[in-house]
């Protein structure tokens, strides 16, 4: 993609003034890191980090049948989400293939905000519009209506509390409420993609710089640092969270990805993909093709997406994401492997790292879970 059609967030000039290394991500020019990505990662695990996630795609669904539309279009029980709460869910094709994974916030009885990955936002928008036919509901493209700033890490509740009168103690994980932060109207959500406690703040783009600066100042004493997408990737990998295009794709169903729990067959009415997903559920239970596992290196060479997983000289799977784990101090990976080799502790499993079979231990996901 040429620089002329690369999109920039409302915080672009600020990132450059902070000396960020920028990268193209799904058509957006985003901060990859500001300094050391390992230091940024560790700051989120132990203190707090500040992220610009304005590339994420917001889609608003309103109307008397907003819930019915989303129950039809998505695989989760969206009508069962209470106002003020959020749900991790997926949108699938008729054949069960995953179009995207989503967070859906129920803002009010008849109003939802669907947050899609930047790379899939147009696909999700198109699918929702198409699937809205016959429903008394409106699907609105709100990608340009929001900037998204996340503050993540154990110090994030204290930092945010110093800037808002909102009841953060009453705000549970996967809940969201409208409020004011540093004088700026914001949807305050207790969600994230790091494996830590934290918040995501949806604000108007014209308020993004003001909010970022207020959070930076409020977090100074607590060790908050700006964080780029590089550490976001290692944080989510340690937390065992899938990334679309790596662990999730149109050629996999939620059951293939080990995330069948997001599919709610018991909900009322038909939904797109129900028939195919019913078959996929049976297949995954009886005869799973490949299973998503964690791999931890015994050596120091790092597995990368696309590398073959091997056992006894035979290819038994493929790495979907891999990186040096700052928390474990070793390379880690997620990989789809044949079911016979998927049990934690399965001996003789390795990764083909540019021609050399390096030994890896099969482990259960996640690699890291925070102490609550």
């Amino acid at each position: 993609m040429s620089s002329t059609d690369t999109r920039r967030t409302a915080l672009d000039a600020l990132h450059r003034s902070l000396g960020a290394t920028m990268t193209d991500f799904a058509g957006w020019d985003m901060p990859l890191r500001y300094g050391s990505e390992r230091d940024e990662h560790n700051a989120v695990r132990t203190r707090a980090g500040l992220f610009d996630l304005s590339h994420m795609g917001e889609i608003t669904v309103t109307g008397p049948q907003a819930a019915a539309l989303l129950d039809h279009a998505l695989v989760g029980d969206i009508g069962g989400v209470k106002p003020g709460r959020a749900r991790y869910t997926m949108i699938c094709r008729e054949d069960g293939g995953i179009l995207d994974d989503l967070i859906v916030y129920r803002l009010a009885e008849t109003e939802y905000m669907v947050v899609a990955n930047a790379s899939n936002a147009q696909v999700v928008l198109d699918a929702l519009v198409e699937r809205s036919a016959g429903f008394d509901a409106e699907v609105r493209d709100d990608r340009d209506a929001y900037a998204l700033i996340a503050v993540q890490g154990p110090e994030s509740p204290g930092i945010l509390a110093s800037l808002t009168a909102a009841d953060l103690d009453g705000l549970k994980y996967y809940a969201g409420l409208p409020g004011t932060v540093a004088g700026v109207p914001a949807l305050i959500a207790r969600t994230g993609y790091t494996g830590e406690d934290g918040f995501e703040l949806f604000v108007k783009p014209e308020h993004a710089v003001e909010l970022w600066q207020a959070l930076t100042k409020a977090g100074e004493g607590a060790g908050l640092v700006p964080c780029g997408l590089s550490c976001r990737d290692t944080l989510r990998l340690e937390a065992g969270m899938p990334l679309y295009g790596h662990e999730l794709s149109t050629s996999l169903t939620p059951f293939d990805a080990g995330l069948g729990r997001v599919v709610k067959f018991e909900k009322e009415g038909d939904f797109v993909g129900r028939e195919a997903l019913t078959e996929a559920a049976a297949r995954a239970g009886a005869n799973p093709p490949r299973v998503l596992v964690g791999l931890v290196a015994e050596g120091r060479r790092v597995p990368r997406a696309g590398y073959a997983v091997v056992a006894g000289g035979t290819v038994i799977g493929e790495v979907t994401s891999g990186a040096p784990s700052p928390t474990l101090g070793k390379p880690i990976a997620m990989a789809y492997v044949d079911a016979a080799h998927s049990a934690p502790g399965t001996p003789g499993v390795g990764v083909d790292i540019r021609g050399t079979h390096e030994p890896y231990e099969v482990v259960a996901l996640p690699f890291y879970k925070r102490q609550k």
Partner: protein
Amino acid sequence: MSNPQELRYSKEHEWLSAVEDGVATIGITEHAANALGDVVFVQLPDVGSAVTAGETCGELESTKSVSDLYAPVTGEVTETNEDVVNDPSLVNSAPFEGGWLFKVRVAEEPADLLSADEYTTFSAG
């Protein structure tokens, strides 16, 4: 960032010290280290092995990627930096000093090594 004047540079972003008693020290430039991000693993050529100018002789792994290490000259490896093997972050924190990678008894130099000023122009482009 400034590239030390007393060093020479390859287009693969290695630096080469002045040759003393036939031996030169080799590392990667600060520009290259910054582009890689945090280096987490270095694989260096074995002491005693032969390296050839412009050919790969090791690898550097960072958070996001793996990159080949190229030999800027032809010769025999006389020493490797065990400190950098044990603590690869030296490549980021001191690329021109404590983050040096290996030493070579130089048999042959390519004609296209760059001066500091030439490399600064090259790496900015």
